[in-house]
């Protein structure tokens, strides 16, 4: 795996620890009043022995959940944080982009801002002045060069910021989450630029949550979790691994952390919770308690329980129901909502299963098999059991209590991706009415 000839970036056993003071001794007064009280610290191990190398011209992705240490790693590589242990080496000029438009001053016109930014990055003033034109060309903002940034529209600002970032003559680019901002058109431009960087054989290290970007652009990817390297390799397995880790463990991790009292676990879980756990928390449950949906899960075509599926892969949703009273002809239903909260799939059993009755204490599993034409996304799963009739008299109803991830290397951007049958007929004699 590491047999590539010349590495551009080499990270060898890097440890990074943050000291989080338990009681803030933030003033001299406190220090003087309590000279004997040693400030106590919580240690937060952000990185625990991270090692990897990135070859020259390689596009390398770093993925990981919130709080896993990926951004800290990038800041260490960029030289913004010092490391406690281990060594890092680079070969060539490094440029770091932690955020778009760092150090932009809204009261200054574009020209000054570009100059300042170039100086911050360490360019000599002659090169900096030359860069102004390149940046403005790329951003297509030549006519606004003397306009103060506060009068720019937000779209122009993002364009300028991105162009400042990309028009830099560095051999190694360290990029953190820039794709999170901007509209679809801007993101496309980012992708185009990434493709260009790849052609020019620049080395790029990209920290991201966007598995689509990882799979499309990265030659290799690395998954880190709680400061450890979990996996390095082909983008596809790494991103699948990430998705599994991400969507199945949030809730559990937060609960475990709270129970264990381990401070860095709590910190990691708290960060994760701020991002994703909220979705699990909005589970709504309703029903009169005549039955209980014990659990629900997805199976792939081989009958294995899965958290994620490839687009197009046939799948089955299974729900385990326990009845607490005798129920005649109940309706079982389930629905999938995509990330935009649109209802994509919904069905119930009023046609498929009728005349079935259940008695108290009985437990059943209902299988809903379907052709998976879903577009890649994360889907929230809702399931219900209702009394015979309109389907509104719920015995139990659980909204978004599970999720399933559909992934694809080639997203179409549409809501569904049905299988297509394409034919081509040549030499058509078109009859024209002439």
């Amino acid at each position, binding site marked *: 795996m590491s047999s590539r000839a010349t590495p551009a970036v080499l990270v060898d056993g890097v440890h990074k620890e943050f000291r989080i003071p338990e009681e803030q001794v933030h003033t001299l007064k406190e220090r003087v009043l309590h000279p004997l009280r040693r400030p106590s610290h919580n240690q937060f191990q952000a990185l625990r022995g991270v090692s990897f190398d990135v070859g020259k011209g390689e596009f390398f992705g770093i993925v990981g959940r919130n709080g896993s240490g990926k951004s800290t790693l990038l800041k260490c590589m960029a030289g913004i944080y*010092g490391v406690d242990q281990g060594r890092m080496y680079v070969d060539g000029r490094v440029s770091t982009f932690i955020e778009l438009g760092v150090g932009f001053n809204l009261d200054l016109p574009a020209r000054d801002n570009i100059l300042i930014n170039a100086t911050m990055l360490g360019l000599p003033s002659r090169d900096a002045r030359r860069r102004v034109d390149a940046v403005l060309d790329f951003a297509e903002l030549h006519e606004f060069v003397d306009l103060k940034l506060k009068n720019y529209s937000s779209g122009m600002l993002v364009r300028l910021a991105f162009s400042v970032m990309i028009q830099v003559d560095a051999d190694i680019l360290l990029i953190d989450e820039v794709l999170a901002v901007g509209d679809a058109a801007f993101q496309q431009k980012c992708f185009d630029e990434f493709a260009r960087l790849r052609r020019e054989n620049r080395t790029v290290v990209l920290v991201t949550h966007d598995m689509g970007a990882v799979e499309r652009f990265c030659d290799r990817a690395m998954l880190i979790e709680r400061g450890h390297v979990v996996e390095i390799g082909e983008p596809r397995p790494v991103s699948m691994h990430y998705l599994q880790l991400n969507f199945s463990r949030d809730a559990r991790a937060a609960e475990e952390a709270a129970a264990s009292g381990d401070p860095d676990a709590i910190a990691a879980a708290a960060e994760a919770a701020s991002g994703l756990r909220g979705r699990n928390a909005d589970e709504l449950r309703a029903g009169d308690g005549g039955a209980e949906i014990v659990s629900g899960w997805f199976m792939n075509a081989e009958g294995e329980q899965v958290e994620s599926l490839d687009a197009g892969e046939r799948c089955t949703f299974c729900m385990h129901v326990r009845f607490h009273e005798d129920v005649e002809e109940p309706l079982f239903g389930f629905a999938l909502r995509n990330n935009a909260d649109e209802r994509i799939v919904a069905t119930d059993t009023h046609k498929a299963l009728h005349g079935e009755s259940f008695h108290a204490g009985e437990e059943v599993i209902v299988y809903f098999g379907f052709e998976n034409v879903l577009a890649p996304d994360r889907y929230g799963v809702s399931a219900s059991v209702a009394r015979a009739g309109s389907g509104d008299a719920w015995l139990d109803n659980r909204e978004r209590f599970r999720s399933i991830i559909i992934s694809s290397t080639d997203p179409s951007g549409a809501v569904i991706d049905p299988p297509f049958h394409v034919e081509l007929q040549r030499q058509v004699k078109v009859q024209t009415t002439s």
Partner: protein
Amino acid sequence: MSATATEPDVELALPSAEGMREVKGPTALGDDPQRLFRLAWTLATTDFKLKFFGSFLGYLWQLMNPLLLFGVLFLVFSFALNLDEGVRYYPVALLLGIVLFSFLNEATSQAVRSLMTRETLVRKIDFPRLAVPMASVLAATFNLLLNLVPVVVFLLASGATPSWSWLLFVLCIVVLVLFAFGMSMILSVGFVRFRDIEPIWTVILQVLFYASGVFFTVDTIAGQKHGQLLVDIFFCNPFAAILAAARHTLVDGSWTSPTQALSSDWLLVIPVGLVVASLVGGFLLFRALAPKVAEDL
């Protein structure tokens, strides 16, 4: 699947790092001193530009502050208290004192918060950290040079003639700027750890204003009981010594210089030593704490 996260790290043989540059983390100076100065210069000129909005009126406003203070103090001390009795060029010397003190005040007060104000840069870009307090002092120095223009104009208007001793005045200004820079290094990096440094320094500046002879002459103290002892103590304060030397060299030779007033020339070691200590100590402190600034902010 749930066990994957706690699996041991991926083992891999790393290639050799031969011929590669080691990433060392942030430092005070960086590896390229030119970059440090260029950066400090750019930051300072930007601040300067922002202040004046590119207009001549902006410059006038900048002058208003010391001139206004001068007007008030002049009225109080010259008409009400008669402090100017028998003193040559009292108004100009007063203005010079105010201008020099304004510089020290501005440079250090800006520097205290400077790392905080530029937090986004510090946390997101790797650059020589020393550029931040250096830029604050540099920006204040630009203002000082502008404010010295009316001082010289007043001086010439009062009938003084340019003399060779003005070259020594330039040296005084250099020492003052270095002293301000030394203090700025200590204050800026100290503020990151101890936030009450700012109010404490404000108080110290107030005391310095009244204790450094901005509006009175050294001879006033010398005339008191235990005058010589008071003068020797008075000149322990580097700013007082610099101010007296500046007046002696620029305004008029009749203004007592520290060497004339001190009981022994050797006592000059104290203020000079303090300036050197602020520079060396400030640099060592800043260099020691610079790598952690991004995390501690």
